[in-house]
């Protein structure tokens, strides 16, 4: 049993807003759902499966299904943080392969920017029932310092430098200049990144993604429906998911769960890293990208610093064009969850609908990779491989 060829992404929509003080989170969910259905050429009544994660207000999918007034026969509210929506595409394909639904809607939306959330630097109150909270909250873990410790260890073990990490932001900024919706459309240099203020050693302000409002939605459908629609077809070829934590105290910060989800996805898709023409790689921080690139096998472990340098991630310049929308580092990071926009830009590339300045030529196979949670403590990883048909 495989999902390879069993389902297609037929609709994708990214909300153009980056700040939405006058809209509710539920309203944003509805707007992206409407946008993705319109993109697909489908209507609300066609949807028979619904997928959402923790950004959706309410208990699991209950409130959103009611708010959108959907009548569905399949549901999934798996939450692995920012990688959830990549997992949802795979789960939708599984459900479709089993006949549990035919047209699945996946939505994400949030407004941390309007709400003034200090996403990266503020320790968050954890539910005391969470077993790790007792042993960690006193030490003030935040999103930034829990990724920064991965960068610190990577530098120690492999000699990775801040300048090499900076190249990831530089590449993203080269792409963002062509995106009229990007929050940070200005091209930056390695020097500007390493000279920006340190937030938590060794990560600088420009190593961190933006905080934005917005959202996105995807429609996944069975092959017969995909063939009946007018949009270019994006076939799901393979997927993997994994969770990595502290392993009972055997902490190893040098790799992400992408080392586990990646090989599963490649095997199911029947392709190799060298076959990938375009990669969306979750860029909560520059270090997140570097580690996932290594873990997916685009280069050897520890060689990520060299691999990302000198524009190797810039479309039309390097070997692995990544995040051609500007990514989380420059474009947006709706609801502090970047997995959705990773899939959307991969769909644009496969359809040939990315901005002409960043469109990858002959883009027939693309990958979307996400992590969620905190790389330095416990995180989910999802890998999705898509093909143009």
């Amino acid at each position, binding site marked *: 049993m495989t999902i390879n060829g069993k389902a297609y992404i037929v609709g994708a929509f990214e909300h153009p807003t980056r700040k939405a003080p006058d809209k509710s989170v539920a309203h944003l969910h509805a707007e992206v759902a409407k946008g993705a259905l319109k993109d697909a050429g489908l209507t609300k009544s066609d949807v028979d499966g619904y997928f959402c994660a923790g950004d959706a207000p309410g208990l699991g999918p209950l409130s959103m299904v009611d708010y959108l007034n959907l009548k569905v026969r399949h549901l999934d509210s798996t939450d692995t943080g920012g990688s959830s929506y990549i997992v949802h595409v795979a789960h939708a394909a599984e459900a479709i392969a089993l006949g549990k639904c035919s047209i699945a809607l996946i939505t994400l939306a949030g407004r941390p920017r309007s709400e003034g959330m200090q996403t990266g630097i503020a320790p968050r109150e954890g539910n005391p029932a969470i077993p790790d909270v007792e042993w960690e909250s006193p030490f003030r873990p935040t999103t930034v310092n829990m990724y920064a*410790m*991965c960068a*610190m260890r990577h530098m120690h073990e492999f000699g990775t430098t801040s300048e090499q990490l900076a190249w990831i932001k530089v590449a993203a900024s080269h792409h963002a200049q062509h995106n009229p919706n990007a929050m940070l459309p200005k091209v930056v240099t390695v020097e500007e990144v390493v000279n920006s203020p340190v*937030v938590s050693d060794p990560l600088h302000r420009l190593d961190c993604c933006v905080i934005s409002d917005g959202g996105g939605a995807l429609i996944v459908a069975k092959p017969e429906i995909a063939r009946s629609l007018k949009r270019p077809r994006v076939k799901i070829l393979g997927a993997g998911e994994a969770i990595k934590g502290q392993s009972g*105290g055997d902490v190893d910060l040098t790799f992400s769960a992408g080392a586990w989800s990646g090989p599963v996805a490649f095997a199911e898709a029947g392709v190799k890293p060298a076959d990938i023409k375009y990669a969306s790689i979750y860029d909560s921080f520059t270090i997140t990208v570097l580690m996932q690139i290594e873990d997916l096998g685009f280069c050897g472990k520890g060689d990520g610093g060299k691999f990302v340098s000198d524009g190797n991630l810039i479309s039309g310049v390097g070997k692995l064009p990544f995040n051609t929308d500007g990514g989380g580092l420059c474009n947006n990071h709706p609801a502090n969850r970047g997995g959705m926009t990773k899939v959307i830009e991969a769909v644009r590339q496969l359809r040939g609908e990315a901005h002409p300045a960043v469109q990858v030529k002959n883009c027939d196979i693309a990958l979307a990779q996400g992590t969620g949670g905190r790389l330095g403590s416990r995180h989910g990883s999802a890998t999705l491989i898509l093909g143009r048909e």
Partner: protein
Amino acid sequence: MKPEKEVMQAPMSHPENQPFWDAAAEGKFIIRKCAACGRVHWYPRAICPFCFSDRTEWVRASGRGTIYSYSVMRRADEPYAIAYVTLEEGPTMLTNIVDCDFDALKIGQRVQLVFEVSEKGAPVPMFTPYEA
């Protein structure tokens, strides 16, 4: 360098971990060891995370270890150092490094336990550099 403006959040204990906090109140640092597989783990659990045996027990730890990784949070009212410390007994735990020059911290540096008092008075296990 102990933060004075920001008072550390007190840990919210679960019943099976009360012996840890009781020992900490007496200045003793205890960790969890499995009598079935012999392995020590962190954070403490009633069921061994390696072999799933329920024959886990509290044992006294030396309180010495080395820094596995760290990061100094500069965007705070008072900068602080979060770290993973690998204990002599094996497991690696999340903690803070205190009473030190943050700019002199290094991976591999030897550290020893100090209990720092949290907002509700519970002592929390942190570490400080020492010369062997």
